């Protein structure tokens, strides 16, 4: 099953690649449309839009999913029901492809809901209590986005069909489009885990690692960004875009800080994904959709690679995910640490790896156009934080002393996992330049003063030094953390947003429903319908039985009495 799906998806990726090259070189885009039913003024059509953006995204999705399925053959080989996982992953890929190629909202809804549902099934795959909780959090947060898209479908019926791409140029200033754009932004924010809805992404790390590599790094969370890229012409002058800018740079900043306090390997990577998502959303809301798309694709590559390396390391550490137990691994697992280092450095934006092309372009565009001071500061600060937690991670896992705290099995020669990582390694090295040559026909004109250009490098060096120093903290180092207990718990627990969005929202209703249940369901409702009626009937029956249990002559006498009563009644 694994091999079949791997080959199929790889082949699919090659087809997409060749079509992408052909389409982008000739500037083609193909639009298929099947009309299913048409009544009065509403027509239900199934349409497929194939232009270079959707083909490129499909190519990346199928590449990552084929590599992940191949990887999971070895990662999950002790799983009895591996076919279940493969089928779920394939359904996920199908929903994602449906989302990518659809220019009308109904098929976007199918893909969107499918993504949410299947990611729930994948998160609860291990079926323990933590997975159930995480799955519930994931599913319900995604559900808000589903509701928003449903309402958009409802509102866009105003215009006659659900193909939104036809209405951008004509209806931009309409009130209905205003509402639609608001709801689309909220839907994208739930899917891509921006600030009000960001609690599900670290919690969804309860999923198996290949699933995290596919779902939570490159495909599910970028669906929101992709939707906004498609809707970009509509949203570009609106007020909500500025709100989105604000929230996404705060997301970027917050997750960068929280990742510095985390000690769980997968959570650090999840928070780094969250930070990069904030980056993508913010550059999108500043008005550069193609740069956002570029960063989406390169980030998918190295983040999936990073998750897979994390999976290999977790296997080696006997399923421990805590980085405090790891150390000094670079000496013993050279190939895996090669992949880990390259993906980490690409994440930081080290020159000429793939992440550099997109990140550096983003930062230069932010510096070149005149945005306000807070945007500028938070962008560079978050870049510095990215380098900070990356270097902290590298120090903890790779460079510091070899901790003898766990039973190790440093087996680096698992070539199934390694081959899949090498594919992504190749792509994560080269995809930056490759994509920038394809997507940008002409380079952006950027003219910056010298120090502003080097600001990125200053911030990165500062972050790396801080990361090195922070990771040297041990049990005997003199730190005054207890003095800043409140501040550090605020920063570590993601600014308390998981608590607010789960317990804070539901507390009132759960309390109220307990009062209702106790007083009505187990109280008055029992007296007036359940036990009460039973008691009444029982009493009537007991009362009747007094008349039933009698001598026979009483019965005969009662008959005579009845006759007399009826006789008298007639004459009255």
């Amino acid at each position, binding site marked *: 099953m694994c091999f079949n799906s791997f080959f199929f998806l790889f082949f699919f990726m090659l087809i997409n690649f060749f079509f992408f090259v052909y389409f982008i070189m000739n500037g083609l885009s193909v639009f298929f449309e099947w009309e299913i039913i048409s009544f009065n003024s509403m027509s239900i059509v199934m349409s497929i839009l194939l232009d270079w953006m959707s083909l490129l995204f499909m190519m990346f999705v199928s590449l990552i999913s084929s590599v992940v399925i191949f990887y999971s053959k070895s990662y999950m080989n002790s799983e009895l029901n591996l076919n279940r996982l493969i089928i779920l992953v394939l359904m996920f890929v199908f929903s994602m492809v449906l989302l990518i190629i659809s220019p009308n909202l109904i098929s976007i809804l199918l893909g969107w809901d499918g993504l949410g549902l299947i990611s729930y099934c994948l998160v609860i795959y291990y079926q323990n209590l933590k997975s159930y909780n995480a799955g519930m959090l994931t599913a319900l947060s995604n559900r808000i986005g589903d509701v928003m898209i449903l309402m958009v479908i409802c509102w866009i019926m105003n215009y006659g069909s659900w193909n939104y791409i036809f209405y951008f140029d004509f209806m931009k200033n309409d009130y209905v489009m205003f509402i639609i754009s608001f709801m689309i932004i909220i839907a994208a924010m739930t899917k891509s885990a921006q600030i009000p809805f960001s609690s599900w992404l670290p919690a969804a790390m309860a999923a198996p690692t290949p699933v995290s590599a596919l779902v939570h790094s490159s495909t599910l969370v970028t669906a929101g960004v992709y939707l906004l890229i498609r809707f970009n012409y509509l949203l570009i002058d609106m007020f909500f875009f500025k709100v989105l800018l604000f929230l996404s740079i705060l997301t970027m900043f917050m997750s960068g800080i929280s990742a510095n306090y985390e000690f769980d390997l997968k959570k650090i990577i999840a928070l780094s994904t969250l930070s990069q998502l904030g980056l993508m959303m913010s550059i999108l809301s500043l008005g550069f959709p193609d740069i956002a798309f570029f960063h989406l694709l390169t980030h998918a590559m190295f983040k999936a690679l990073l998750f897979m390396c994390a999976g290999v390391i977790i296997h080696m550490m006997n399923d421990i995910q805590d980085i405090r137990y790891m150390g000094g691994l670079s000496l013993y697992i050279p190939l895996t640490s090669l992949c880990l280092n390259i993906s980490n450095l690409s994440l930081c934006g080290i020159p000429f790896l793939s992440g550099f092309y997109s990140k550096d372009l983003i930062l230069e565009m932010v510096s070149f156009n005149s945005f306000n001071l807070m945007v500028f500061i938070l962008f560079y600060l978050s870049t510095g934080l990215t380098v900070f937690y990356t270097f902290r991670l590298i120090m903890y896992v790779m460079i510091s002393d070899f901790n003898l705290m766990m039973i190790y099995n440093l087996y680096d020669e698992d070539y199934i996992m390694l081959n899949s990582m090498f594919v992504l390694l190749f792509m994560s090295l080269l995809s930056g330049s490759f994509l920038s040559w394809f997507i940008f026909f002409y380079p952006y004109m950027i003219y910056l003063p010298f120090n502003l250009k080097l600001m990125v490098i200053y911030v990165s060096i500062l972050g790396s030094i801080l990361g090195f120093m922070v990771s040297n903290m041990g049990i005997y180092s003199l730190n005054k953390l207890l003095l800043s207990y409140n501040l550090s718990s605020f920063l570590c627990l993601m600014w308390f947003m998981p608590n607010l969005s789960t317990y804070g929202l539901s507390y009132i209703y759960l309390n109220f429903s307990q009062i209702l249940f106790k007083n009505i369901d187990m109280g008055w409702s029992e007296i007036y319908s359940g036990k009460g009626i039973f008691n009444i*009937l029982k009493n009537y029956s007991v009362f009747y039985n007094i008349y039933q249990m009698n001598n026979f002559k009483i019965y005969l006498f009662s008959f005579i009495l009845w006759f007399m009563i009826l006789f008298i009644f007639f004459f009255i």
Partner: protein
Amino acid sequence: MNNNSNKMFFLFILFFSTLISISSNSWFGCWIGLEINLLSFIPLISNSKNLLSVETSLKYFLTQSLASINFLFMILIKFSLLKNFDMNNIISIMMNSSLLMKMGSAPFHFWFPNIVEGLSWMNNFMLMTWQKISPMILLSYYFNKNFLIFMIIMNLIIGSLGGLNQTSLRKLLAFSSINNLGWMIFSIMISENLWLFYFLIYSMMIFMMISLFFLMNMYFMNQLFINNMNFFIKLNLLINFLSLGGLPPFMGFMPKWIIINFLLINKFYFLTFIFMMTSLIIIYYYIRIIYSSFMFNYFKMKWMNLLMKNNMSLINLSSFISISSMILSTFIFM
């Protein structure tokens, strides 16, 4: 008397007496039929070796003869004083009440659970089904609508409330029979054909239940719990009880449905409400028995084995009829 030939003789006369009573064209002939009915039923139920059954037959004799005397008296008054066909007068009330006493309908029903307690299952079957035919048909010749509606309401209420506190299976079926009498009396007021339909289905359901109880020799409710019946017998009993209560996919729902249809067409709304609610109480009681004895928590005794190998075909057939006859009848009739 234990001789089968004697029983056959009296059974024959019993059947014949009902036919006499129905098909006579004078009230006098009806009365004769009722008397012969009484006289031929008494030897069927009395068994001189058992004191309880003698007492039962005596009780039966006393009540039925009282009713017959009353009936004859009212007939004679009707012949001599009132020569018209007006149905809303005192004579019709009196005639109807004597016929109701013959049937065992409220408020003259007090003898009915007592007598049923003293008879065996097959005699009970006779009492509950065949003995009701001639009074019902005679009722349909000359009834007082307002009086009968009052009687119907009393029947329903007493049948449902009295059955709540019973543990003897015979008394339970007796109260259920009183309740169903209410439905049957109403169906007489609509049309005799409808009464025939209801009566046939009711007697078939009662036959299935009574034959099952007879084969397993069960007279009390605790005997339902402490035996080792196999699954199909339990299922059959479950289905029959639910069908008797009038639950939809089973056979017993069909006549009740048609009667409710007629009730609503003729705008008897309050009466519909009483029919519904008492039906619910009856079904509550059935479900209480069968669920607790067969489904939720039942004992499997090791010291008693009920081998029912020879009778499985009858049981299967009756289950099949109970479940499917409502749907099959739509193929036949519609």
